[in-house]
């Protein structure tokens, strides 16, 4: 009996010791001049870098060649998240499978959902494919809030960058002028580049394409492509023989020659479709960092448009 009591006391003591220890050595370091930003994806990281310049430290959780629906919530991300002052997410349930546990376990009050350091970029963007009427998973892994791949539209990039500028200015009012100037410069450069991209894509306006996943509606709308089918029978459902046959038939009927595939999907089915239809598989990068040379948001479109142009020229 006395032995037990002593043990209970020991437990209480150990617990209070842990508490004191925790309070004595806080993990969160001193706030230095740079804003520590974590983003869910590399595209948001690139935009945050454009606006934040050398006043920010930006890192993305997901890599550019990774399927952003399926990211492992590794504890190594927790350390980075625990020190972040700002977390920028894609939203629209894109990260629903991995980000919520990371946010909770980061034990960082600044970046909890709804806190000042939590920024949902979808709030600023133009969202397509918002389902109307009843939404069921008979449609596959649908995103009830709309298509989350909205960053592939330069107009949306400006809107997101503006949102980031406002947020950064709010966090560091002293640097507001700097962020405003960075944004203006970015807007100017992006508009210039966008004109070139649009000009490059103009000859192919209305071109029919097939994509693997529904990653490209904003891209297609901006550059005037016409997505007529998908390799996946439903979002998130792997290709089925029956659907593939139907798709091949449709592509032959409509003369579709280009199959746009994200880098994280298997090329077996797209390749066989291409063989059957005399078309071509184009591995396009949906995100910054998909290839080594794609180091920022501008290079992402440079890369994708060059690839598309080449494919369109070769198949016609």
């Amino acid at each position, binding site marked *: 009996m006395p032995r037990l009591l002593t043990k209970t006391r020991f437990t209480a003591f150990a617990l209070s010791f842990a508490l004191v220890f925790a*309070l004595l050595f806080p*993990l969160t370091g001193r706030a230095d001049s740079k804003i520590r930003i974590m983003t869910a994806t590399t595209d948001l990281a690139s935009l945050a870098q454009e606006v934040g310049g050398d006043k920010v430290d930006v890192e993305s959780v997901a890599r550019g*060649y990774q*399927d952003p629906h399926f990211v492992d919530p590794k504890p190594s991300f927790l350390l980075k998240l625990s020190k972040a002052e700002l977390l920028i997410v894609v939203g629209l349930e894109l990260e629903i499978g991995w980000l919520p546990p990371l946010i909770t376990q980061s034990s960082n009050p600044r970046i*909890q959902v709804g806190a000042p350091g939590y920024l949902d970029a979808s709030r600023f963007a133009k969202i397509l494919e918002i389902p109307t009427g009843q939404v069921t998973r008979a449609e596959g892994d649908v995103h009830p809030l709309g298509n989350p791949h909205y960053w592939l539209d330069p107009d949306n990039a*400006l809107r997101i960058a503006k949102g980031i500028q406002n947020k950064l200015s709010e966090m560091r009012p002293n640097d507001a002028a700097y962020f405003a100037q960075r944004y203006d410069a970015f807007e100017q450069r992006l508009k210039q580049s966008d004109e070139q991209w649009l000009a490059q894509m103009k000859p192919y306006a209305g071109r029919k394409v097939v994509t693997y996943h529904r990653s490209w509606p904003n891209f297609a709308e901006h550059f005037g492509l016409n997505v007529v089918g998908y390799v996946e029978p439903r979002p998130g459902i792997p290709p089925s023989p029956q659907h593939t046959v139907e798709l091949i038939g449709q592509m032959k009927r409509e003369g579709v020659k280009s199959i746009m595939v994200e880098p994280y999907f298997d090329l077996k089915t797209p390749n066989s479709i291409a063989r059957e239809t005399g078309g071509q598989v184009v591995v396009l990068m949906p995100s910054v960092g998909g290839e080594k040379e794609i180091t920022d948001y501008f290079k992402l479109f440079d890369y994708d448009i060059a690839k598309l142009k080449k494919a369109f020229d070769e198949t016609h």
Partner: protein
Amino acid sequence: MKRFAVLPVLLLFSSSAHAQDATSVAIKRDVSPANTEDARMKALEAQVRTLAGEVTLLRSELKELRETKSPQPSSGPQVLLASAHPEPGMLPSSPAPAAAQVAQTQTFGGASGNAKLLNPDISLIGDFIGTAGHNKVSPERSLEMHESEVGMQAIIDPYARADAFISFGETGVNVEEAYVTFTSLPGGLLLKVGKKRADFGKVNTIHNHALPFIDRPLVTNNLVGGEDGIDDAGLFLSRFLPAPKNWFLEGSAEVLRGDSADVFQASRRQDVGVVGHLRAYRDLSESTNLDLGLSYARGHNNLGSNFLTNLYSGDATLRWKPLRRAIYNSFLFRTELFWSARDQLSAAVPNLFQTQHAFGMYSSAEYRVNRRWTVGGRFDRSGHATDARLTDTGFSGILTYWPSEFSQIRGQYRFGHLATGPSDFSNANEILFQFLFVMGAHGAHPF
């Protein structure tokens, strides 16, 4: 950008709607019957005037924006907005519908706020298990709706979130977990309060439907309380610890009431249990990582307050998942070792107090062959907590098929060399199959 025109317009609309609310409240408060009609008319007039003014303002603003920002014919949301503009004559009767229409047709931002309202994320996971073959030691029913687990998860307030998992089984309802997590504590502390699976090793923290096998390892049943494991009401405190470079260290300290299945039992209020856990994690490369853990649990057992059970465990997990092919190929190897020290009365000598030391372990591996198929295996070995001379051994082969992310079909062949006496064994050969289905909110993937 031209589409930014929508933002001021929306803002103005919302402010006008607000103004209208304020007026109607003022009207309601005016109770004098003589004044009512007069005041109403006046209020309405004033309202019409302000709204009309606002519309003129908006129109001129919109025009200005169009002229300055988009020389080309406008498209997209602007058209929608323009069409949502009510004519001045319609104004008094239909300001509200017009605003609603704008809300419906605007495409900026997700519908997150409206679509979910304040409901928690609700899900139901059905777990159907069938068993065939023979097992004399622990026979299970041929077919059973093993568990229907309802999950409810929500953010409670800016400082906390809560998760509840209630499982409806064949024998009754059980609150598997229900806890609140305080996310905004100082000092990097994370506190969970409620009923929760304790952080004792790996398999103890995993819900049935998220296991890579149909059953639980033999050692769970023999030493760590069976299917429910160490799952108790208590306070769960954890924190990241300072670690060498590239390592992640996390410590947890948990105080439980002391009632967990058949492993711990609190006969008195002060018979609380404790669990301590230390986790070390390291990325070996972008696609490979190592996850190590040490755990300790202590509580009183079913023999009374003077009888303690101490449990120790060590776990190691090696994961491989190439990021470019994450949805097609992955590999996981895991081993957990358990030691149990249980105070009890000797079976051989009456009234002799003794501590029974038993050891158990399992090793499992799983390989994702492609997007839909996973193969796996598990080796089991475990003594009995009450009689360490009895040791069970077993192995399993597992095959899993995923029609989609939301359903799963699994088959498992299980062999058991189960002890029925110090040197008596009974062999069990069984085929298990399982159907899992997920309804509702998309839960997080376990890691």
